[in-house]
């Protein structure tokens, strides 16, 4: 029941907001806050339930062969936690920035929340596609929400590429259905073993291509930098921190369930895509002048790291990928919030014009520094440990090149993050400007955003140190073991 609630509660909130809007033009912030809290606690309840005892709920009481099932195991729970923390932070930032004014924004936000939980919990391939499309439409709308021409263009680009990706997923689903006649993912993982090789190749090509486009990995990443940089701060953070992770969950779930035993080439392809993404993303980030585009290309690279972990096709690799997903959520959300606030106040996103911030806003710069050190992979922060785990699992899978790519990526990312930081600490124009000319704009202090950035930075430090203890490592490796244990998943769903 908790699983159904995790999907239904945010959807109800999404439909209640327009209704409340009819009664009052401006919604009180506390109302949306409470709705957010209830929705998040519903998804946390599902995560909790799924973590300690894997849970299945058959919708309408139909058997898994016919009906739709919702499944929560440790992999889903881990991603529920990631999306929960991430969307909570994004909601808090949005509430601080916009207040209760834009009711449409919040309606779309809750729609997104519900569909994300749907993707993370569903055990049915077609249902996955449906939730994926709700999720995508909500994401397109959020990207274009500010209605500036950049945002509209980015939204359209995202929409076209996202729809192509969705159509490939739909095609893969159609092929799967034609080949086997079932859509339940657990049953499919058994049925696909007996499917002819050529059909399986077509299915895996369609599904992996579609999911890769949705993830934003390198060769088909075009939408990602535009969408992530043109959206508003809270949305950028949500896109980079959370939405990408949901796509990665879908990729992991589908690939591990369907192709782990049947088609090893898929994982080789994912490793190649991941390595290309990591290198390409870093190299493109090096060339950016716009701070948000830089962060967006850095996201492409980090997606590459996660895909390298997934491509290892081992429990260790999956655990490393989940750990890095969690870390990347913390780091990139914090970075986007910090960069967005700083550039909003400076009125520009050009890195070379973001000077003198160390004097004006030391806390923001400090937070940005810690988070960028974490994402570069400086010990003792969490980025170092998650990179180490990915390198370790990659070497364990017998491939060295991805590990070398990660090592090279560290160097490149250090170069471009240092460029940003050196701009931040360099003396600003205001130092030379005469006092009469400068009129400090009164900007509302962003205490909530600052708290989020600060606490994410602390969290990065804590996770980096915790990763050394065998106890917490055991937690993460249990996620990896769940992810690759197809038999347990099938047993869970079918009740055998």
């Amino acid at each position, binding site marked *: 029941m908790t699983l159904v609630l995790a999907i239904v509660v945010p959807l109800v909130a999404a439909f209640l907001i327009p209704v409340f809007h009819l009664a009052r033009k401006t919604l009180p912030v506390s109302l949306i806050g409470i709705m957010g809290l209830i929705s998040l606690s519903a998804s946390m309840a599902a995560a909790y339930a799924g973590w300690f005892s894997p849970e299945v709920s058959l919708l309408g009481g139909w058997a898994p062969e016919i009906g739709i099932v919702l499944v929560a195991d440790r992999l889903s729970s881990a991603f529920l936690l990631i999306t929960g923390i991430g969307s909570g932070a994004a909601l808090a930032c949005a509430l601080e920035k916009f207040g209760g004014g834009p009711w449409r924004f919040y309606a779309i936000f809750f729609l997104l929340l519900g569909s994300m939980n749907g993707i993370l919990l569903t055990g049915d391939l077609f249902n996955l596609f*449906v939730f994926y499309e709700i999720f995508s439409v909500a994401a397109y709308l959020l990207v274009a929400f500010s209605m500036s*021409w950049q945002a509209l*263009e980015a939204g359209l680009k995202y*929409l*076209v590429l996202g729809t192509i990706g969705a*159509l490939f997923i*739909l095609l893969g689903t159609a092929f799967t259905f034609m080949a086997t006649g079932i859509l339940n993912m657990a049953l499919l993982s058994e049925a696909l073993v007996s499917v002819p090789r050529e059909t399986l190749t077509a299915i895996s090509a369609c599904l992996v291509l579609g999911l890769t486009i949705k993830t934003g990995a390198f060769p088909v990443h075009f939408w990602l*930098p535009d969408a992530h940089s043109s959206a508003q701060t809270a949305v950028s953070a949500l896109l980079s921190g959370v939405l990408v992770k949901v796509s990665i969950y879908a990729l992991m779930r589908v690939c591990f369930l369907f192709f782990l035993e049947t088609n090893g080439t898929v994982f080789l392809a994912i490793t190649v895509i991941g390595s290309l993404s990591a290198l390409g993303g870093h190299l493109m980030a090096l060339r950016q002048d716009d701070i948000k585009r830089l962060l967006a290309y850095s996201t492409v690279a980090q997606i590459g790291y996660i895909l390298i972990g997934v491509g290892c096709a081992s429990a260790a690799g999956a655990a490393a990928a989940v750990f890095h997903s969690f870390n990347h959520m913390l780091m990139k959300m914090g970075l986007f919030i910090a960069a967005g606030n700083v550039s909003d106040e400076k009125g520009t996103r050009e890195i070379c014009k973001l000077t003198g911030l160390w004097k004006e806003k030391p806390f923001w710069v400090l937070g940005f520094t810690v988070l960028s050190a974490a994402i570069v992979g400086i010990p003792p922060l969490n980025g170092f440990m998650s990179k180490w785990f990915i390198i370790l699992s990659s070497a364990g899978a017998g491939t060295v090149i991805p590990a070398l790519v990660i090592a090279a990526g560290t160097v490149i990312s250090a170069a471009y993050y240092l460029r940003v930081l050196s701009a931040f600490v360099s003396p600003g124009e205001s130092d030379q400007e005469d006092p009469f000319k400068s009129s400090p704009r009164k900007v509302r202090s962003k205490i909530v955003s600052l708290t989020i950035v600060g606490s994410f930075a602390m969290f990065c430090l804590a996770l980096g140190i915790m990763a050394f203890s065998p106890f917490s490592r055991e937690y993460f490796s249990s996620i990896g073991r769940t992810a690759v244990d197809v038999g347990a998943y099938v047993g869970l769903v079918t009740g055998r």
Partner: protein
Amino acid sequence: MITLSYVTSVIIFCIGLYTIMARRNLFKTVLGLALMESAILLIIVSSGYIPGGVPPIEPFMGPAVNPLPHAFTLTAIVIGASDIALALAFIIKLQRHYRSVDLDRIRGLRG
């Protein structure tokens, strides 16, 4: 008959993909999306076809065709419609800003 519909759908799919890649007009891009979608729907619908089957409505008169693909198709049509509606809305907004629907003139964002 089935083969014919599969071949048709593959051709339509390729036409759609080509339209998206080759045409610079945003409306044609959307048309391409719609074509691709129709092709996939055609595949799904024809996959449920049984030679000599009857509509799956009670009471059955002989073997009925598989109703599940029809349900999928309906769902996918709804989803596709919302996607295309959204795309058209974006294009209208962009047209008001640029006074054009040509991709070569709408190049605000790099990369």
